[in-house]
């Protein structure tokens, strides 16, 4: 029993000594970080707030940034003005030891609002209006609508239409009647159509030269053994602003800065010969190409091939227009007929659409646009796609440019870094519709002249065509794919393809 008591006493003494020893020894700090990597923007503050164990008022904290002491508190607010990688170290020390933890800070340039810095023209009180053309060529027996777009500051003016000096549509305000006139029932010959705007203080007149030409077929050109399947000339290359124009270098060098329209058209032609891509830019951007022969309307089968680069998730539909050389001058200055696609005559399409882009006054800034539906927006400058200072075409004169055509509603989505740009059913370039398939010339869009429509939605019933125009149909962009811009690689006569 005595031995047992001695043993117990010894144990108590040992335990007591051990407790004293532990209290004296204590424990060094422990640091817990919720994260040890942060992604922050330049100028943004990021609070780093570790949790600690074994700390008290006597604990010493040291924060270093890339080796230099920057703080002595338990927390640290990180903020820098220059992008780059920074390393923080926090050290907590007490009399029993210390602990440290490293933190990596990736500082990125702040993302600017894509619309920030766009040049938006100042409002003015001056009267203005716009027209797609002032020279009209149409074959005898056809009709044509002349229409004024973007009428501004007319102060309740009246509009009068005259033909060769005779009033054909009496004065009426815009509220009373749209400012448009349909040419109809004119016999062959030249006419002068005039539109006069009159208000209390001002009067403006726009004259249109109208040439009623010989009937369809007069200037039709047959095919020969030397006829070329691919278009033989690019007449106009007028892309709207976009990230794949000016300076874009995905395939082939498009050309130097300061190009003329002719140089640009020659470059497009060279691209088509290699089946390389050209972009039409944002909504309304277009190119006009012609054949060395008239392309027959097969009456319901495919007549035209237009290659693009659609993917399941990326469709950038382009509206296709065709025309005949109605005046026989070899130039595409005649009536355009839209090839109706699946959305024609639905709520997804707006006819007689116009959009104006404004030339930016600063480098690398978005390009502002307004349309004739009362909408506005920008084509963003996306440096990672194309770092060129401006997406404005060098050969476009003036400070603004209006594109006339048709418009397709977009169903483009962007979520969680993923874009989806769905296709419509059929009838448009550069989209995976039912008419884009691995056919006669491989993966291509195949189109029918029989779908051509007149301005008033009737079947145009064209026997043939001489020119093709392709126009970007949608106004949209996503952060990772950039702006929706129809791309064209190649245009040809389906019938001459082997």
């Amino acid at each position, binding site marked *: 029993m005595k031995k047992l008591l001695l043993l117990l006493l010894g144990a108590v003494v040992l335990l007591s000594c051990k407790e004293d020893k532990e209290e004296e020894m204590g424990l060094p700090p422990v640091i*817990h*970080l919720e*994260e*040890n*990597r*942060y*992604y922050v923007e330049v100028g943004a503050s990021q609070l780093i707030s570790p949790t600690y164990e074994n700390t008290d008022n006597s604990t010493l904290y040291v924060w270093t940034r890339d080796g230099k002491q920057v703080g002595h508190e338990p927390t640290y607010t990180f903020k820098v003005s220059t992008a780059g990688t920074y*390393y923080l170290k926090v050290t907590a020390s007490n009399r029993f030891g210390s602990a440290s933890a*490293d*933190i*990596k800070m*990736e500082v990125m340039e702040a993302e600017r609002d894509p619309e920030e810095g766009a040049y938006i023209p100042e409002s003015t009180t001056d009267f203005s209006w716009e027209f797609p053309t002032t020279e009209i060529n149409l074959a005898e027996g056809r009709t044509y609508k002349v229409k004024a777009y973007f009428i501004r500051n007319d102060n309740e003016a009246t509009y009068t239409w005259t033909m060769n000096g005779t009033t054909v549509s009496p004065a009426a305000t815009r509220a009373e009647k749209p400012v448009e006139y349909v040419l109809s029932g004119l016999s062959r010959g030249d006419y002068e159509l005039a539109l006069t705007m009159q208000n209390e203080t001002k009067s403006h007149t726009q004259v249109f030269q109208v040439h009623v030409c010989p009937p369809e077929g007069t200037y039709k050109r047959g095919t020969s053994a030397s006829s070329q399947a691919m278009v033989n000339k690019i007449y106009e290359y007028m892309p709207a602003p976009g990230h794949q124009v000016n300076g874009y270098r*995905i395939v082939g060098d498009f050309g130097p800065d300061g190009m003329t329209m002719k140089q640009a058209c020659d470059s497009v032609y060279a691209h088509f010969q290699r089946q390389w891509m050209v972009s039409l830019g944002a909504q309304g951007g277009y190119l006009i190409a012609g054949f060395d022969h008239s392309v027959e309307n097969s009456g319901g089968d495919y007549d035209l091939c237009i290659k693009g680069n659609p*993917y*399941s*998730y990326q469709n950038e539909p382009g509206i296709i227009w065709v025309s005949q050389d109605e005046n026989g001058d070899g130039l595409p200055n005649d009536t355009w007929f839209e090839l109706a696609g699946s959305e024609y005559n639905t709520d997804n399409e707006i006819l007689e659409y116009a959009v104006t882009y404004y030339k930016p006054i600063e480098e690398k800034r978005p390009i502002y646009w307004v349309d004739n539906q009362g909408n506005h927006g920008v084509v963003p400058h996306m440096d*990672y*796609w194309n770092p060129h200072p401006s997406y404005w075409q060098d050969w476009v004169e003036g400070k603004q440019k209006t594109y006339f055509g048709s418009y397709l509603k977009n169903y483009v989505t962007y979520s*969680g*870094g*993923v874009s989806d740009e769905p296709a419509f059913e059929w009838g448009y370039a550069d989209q995976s519709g039912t008419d884009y398939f691995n056919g006669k010339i491989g993966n291509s869009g195949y189109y029918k002249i029989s779908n051509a429509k007149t301005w008033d939605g009737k079947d145009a019933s064209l026997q043939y065509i001489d020119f093709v125009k392709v126009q970007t149909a949608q106004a949209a962009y996503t952060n*990772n*794919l*950039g702006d929706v811009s129809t791309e064209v690689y190649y245009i040809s006569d389906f019938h001459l393809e082997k």
Partner: protein
Amino acid sequence: MSKKLYIYILCLLSTLVVSCSGGGDDIGPTPSPTPTPTPVPTSEGVFILNEGNLNAGNSSLSYYIPANKSVKNGIFSSTNSRKLGDTAQSMVLYKGTLWIAVENSGIIWAIDAETYKVKGQIVAKDHIMDDPRYIHFLSDTKAYVTDLFAPLITIINPSTYQIIGTIPTGQAAMFGFASTEQMVQYGKYVFTNCWSYSNKILVIDTTEDKVVKEIELSTWQPKSMVLDANGKIWVITDGGYSFGEDRFSDNVPHLYKINASNFEIESDQILDTDEANVQLALNGNKTTLYILNNDIFRMSINESQVPVFPFITAPVDSNGKRHLLYGLSVNPKNDEIYVADAIDYSQSGVCYRYTSDGELLDKFRVGINPNMFVFQ
């Protein structure tokens, strides 16, 4: 560490695994010990799979012997007088046979691991197994094969070289991809990561050959996956990609820890912006995690965060450009670390062999885009 202590820790970890697996409350019965057979070692060499370039048909197989630091390249074609194929994706050694999935050729080769001679092959049929990615053995007569595009996992019979079935994954294609990738097994469940344009981990009940659960991650493209000694699945995402104009998502990888017994995500940490491939590997006793994320990082499976500074730094060329590290494996016998360097994706790659402490032991040239090591 003494052998006794090492065994003790192993036993403790085993207990933890069983404990964790029994803790699940909504995933059915406790998993039985994994049925995955252990490959039989035949010698001491290392197979290196060289992916080659897409549509170039230049995949190849190399063999490295650490003992004398010798390497033989192109052993498949030189032995069998035929090409390995286009875009060899993965390989697995099973009972003396090396199985190689060649994605863009739609073929799986079975070669003798000693002679390298082809023993058999399984080819895509009726658009089944068009793009095989990884093979996971369940038994001598059953294995799963994942696919880059198809929403199907192919079931093969390795003993007859036949496709014997499919498992619909139920994944809607995004941009044409409905991919499944690597596989790990915990009890009766096989987990597979849906890499391409996805953020899912699928759980397959191997007794039913059926997807029974989807685990959704908060970031895109889970690329690599390992199962540690604690019964936790580590998953690394690559966050998408950025190749010039071609972008998908933010390209920032994340590392997830998932409890294999209840399918719950236990942690999610952000990593460094990815410049090349991301991969995970474990040491032999599955207690140390290695992370390929530009450089090589290392952490204990019981730690909560990947260190800020790398364990092994990727080489840098004379222009200051970091090499593109593409593959990572750890020899389970001695914990030596093997790193595959694709350099620039176009020239012959280089492999580096390190001690478990990160000391460089050897480096050697192999084929184009080495992506994987298999240890005999």
